[in-house]
């Protein structure tokens, strides 16, 4: 009895939720865009991860200098784009949540569980990713970076399984022409008639809602079937799906819903796509200026704004937050450069007395914002040479900062020997601001901001 009621409810929901935009073809169209966005996020995220935690054999390219700015900008922008795309995809397949029987077999249970995992991890990933750009860590009862990294594999793994499960549907509806042909050929999924009473809604044996324009008209029986015990096949229109179900409160609610004026399929589908397009364009146009200068003018919702900050540049971690103010401004500050037993200390004045080089390099944060700036200072190559290092060497840089996982940074030879890699003393024509790493900081091409170590204390040749 209870099972019957639940089944009736699920069937009713599934029928009433049908919409012209809820078709396998639409799921494929939006799904592949979402898959591309996920894979872009995954690829750029993995690149960012290994830049920060490289495997011993890894060597990175330092050109183009904007490479990390580009990859991390894509990571964050594609992540924001996932909001409209994921919501649209979930909207399309929402009726599938109410399929009956809820579990048909063990593989079906696994399939549904994998989808639940896929959906939950995707939502958690993009929401926490967004909140991370606002640095709202207090909301997470888990560490952001590690969880974000682990979930990325869970999501791409679930995506692969989801594509595998739906591969035949994806193949059928990959192109519009093929999708229409398939819909013409496929037999209409029929709903079995009720066995006991016309008023008891039976379980429909239905596949995902199939609705292409020709199939839609072909599928639909007329109202003559209503109330006769025969029930229409499931289509994309709740009105056409309607059955007599005025019994009880839920029956009345469904009857009320079913009498809603139907949406014309073609217009409805085009409207849906247009809405997704406008949403996607809006979220990108109004936030991506934090990463891409060309969109700075329309950046009204990005958590960072180009040119806003000391030295006309945003700051990720302030001197106050890093608790380095006193040590960084102490008169006795010196940068110690060592190579085995050889060691030299350079005051800021001594560093300024060395050959100075000016470079145009972007600072690109893992949180996605980035900005190109003019940096002036001493080449790291010259500093390591001054302590007798030769050829390709790795350097360990240490910050005055304590209790930070980024206080110590390793820099491979590809960066150390790059002429653009500086110990910067000036930024945008001014003395380096305390929040930007005064008295001296690292700047190298193509690395995440967290590796552009601020408030330098020592450089060790390894």
């Amino acid at each position, binding site marked *: 009895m209870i099972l019957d009621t639940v089944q009736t409810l699920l069937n009713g929901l599934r029928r009433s*939720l049908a919409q012209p935009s809820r078709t396998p073809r639409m799921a494929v169209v939006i799904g592949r865009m979402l898959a591309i966005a996920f894979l872009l996020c995954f690829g750029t995220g993995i690149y960012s991860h290994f830049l920060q935690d490289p495997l011993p054999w890894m060597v990175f390219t330092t050109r183009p200098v904007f490479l990390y700015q580009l990859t991390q900008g894509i990571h964050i922008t594609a992540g924001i784009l996932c909001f*409209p795309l994921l*919501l649209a995809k*979930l909207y399309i397949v*929402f009726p599938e*949540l109410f399929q009956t029987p809820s579990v048909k077999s063990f593989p079906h249970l696994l399939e549904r569980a994998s989808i639940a995992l896929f959906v*939950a991890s995707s939502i*958690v990933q993009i929401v*926490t990713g*967004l*909140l991370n750009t*606002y*640095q*709202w860590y207090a909301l*997470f*009862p*888990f*560490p952001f970076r*590690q*969880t974000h990294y*682990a*979930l990325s*594999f*869970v999501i791409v*793994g*679930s995506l*692969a*399984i*989801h594509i*595998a*499960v739906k*591969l*035949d*549907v994806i193949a059928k509806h990959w192109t519009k022409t093929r999708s229409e042909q398939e819909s013409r050929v496929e037999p209409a999924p029929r709903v079995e008639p009720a066995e006991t009473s016309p008023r008891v809604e039976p379980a429909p044996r239905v596949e*995902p809602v199939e609705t292409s324009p020709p199939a839609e008209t072909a599928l639909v029986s007329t109202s003559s079937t209503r109330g006769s015990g025969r029930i229409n096949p499931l289509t994309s229109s709740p009105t056409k799906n309607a059955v007599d179900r005025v019994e009880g409160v839920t029956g009345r609610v469904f009857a009320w819903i079913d009498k*809603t*004026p139907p*949406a*014309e399929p073609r*217009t*409805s589908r085009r*409207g849906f796509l*247009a*809405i997704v397009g*406008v949403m996607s364009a*809006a*979220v990108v146009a*109004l*936030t991506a200026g934090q990463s891409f200068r060309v969109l700075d003018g329309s950046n009204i*919702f*990005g*958590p*960072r704004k180009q040119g*806003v*900050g000391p030295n006309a540049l*945003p*700051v990720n*971690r*302030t001197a106050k*937050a890093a608790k380095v103010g006193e040590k960084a401004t102490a008169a006795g500050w010196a940068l110690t450069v060592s190579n085995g037993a050889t060691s030299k200390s350079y005051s800021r004045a001594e560093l300024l007395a060395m050959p100075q080089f000016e470079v145009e390099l972007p600072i690109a944060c893992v949180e996605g914002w980035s900005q190109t700036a003019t940096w002036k200072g001493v080449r790291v190559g010259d500093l390591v040479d001054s302590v007798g290092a030769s050829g390709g060497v790795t350097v360990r840089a240490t910050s005055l900062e304590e209790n930070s996982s980024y206080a110590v940074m390793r820099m491979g030879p590809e960066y150390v020997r790059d002429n653009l890699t500086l110990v910067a003393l000036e930024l945008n024509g001014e003395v380096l601001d305390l929040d930007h790493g005064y008295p001296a900081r690292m700047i190298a091409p193509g690395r995440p901001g967290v590796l552009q170590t601020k408030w330098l204390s020592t450089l060790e040749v390894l």
Partner: protein
Amino acid sequence: MTSVAVSPVIRRWRIALVVVGLALLALGGLVLLNDVNPKRYLGLAAWFLGALIIHDGIISFGVFGVNTAMRKAGRRVPLPVLLILQGAAVVGALMALIVVPEIAKKAIGTGNATLLPLDYAANLGWFYVVLAAVTAVVIAVYLAVARARRART
């Protein structure tokens, strides 16, 4: 699986994808075990469950309700006009989803003047004004075009 009879090509791809997927899931699980303290798993599970409840239980039904109500209320309104209105509502809601947490975090405080430096509440207000204006213009243009078409026929 959604279909029983599939071509050998699809079957091969399917097996390959499932193997890759399971390997990646296992890797994700290993990373989680290695890098995240087990004390945090409950919190993560709560977020997972919360995500499903908020999306499937609240947002989706909310959208369904609004969609049904709009179509009920707009019986005599042409479908394209209804879709334009629905589109504007959806765009506005999505932007709120992204910007309201920004406004809240800024109100709480960031400890860094360059993080969330803009007046997001005012910007969201202006965005809605522009959205309403654009929606009105698009509806007006649609109605004018539809009238002209009817006049021609």
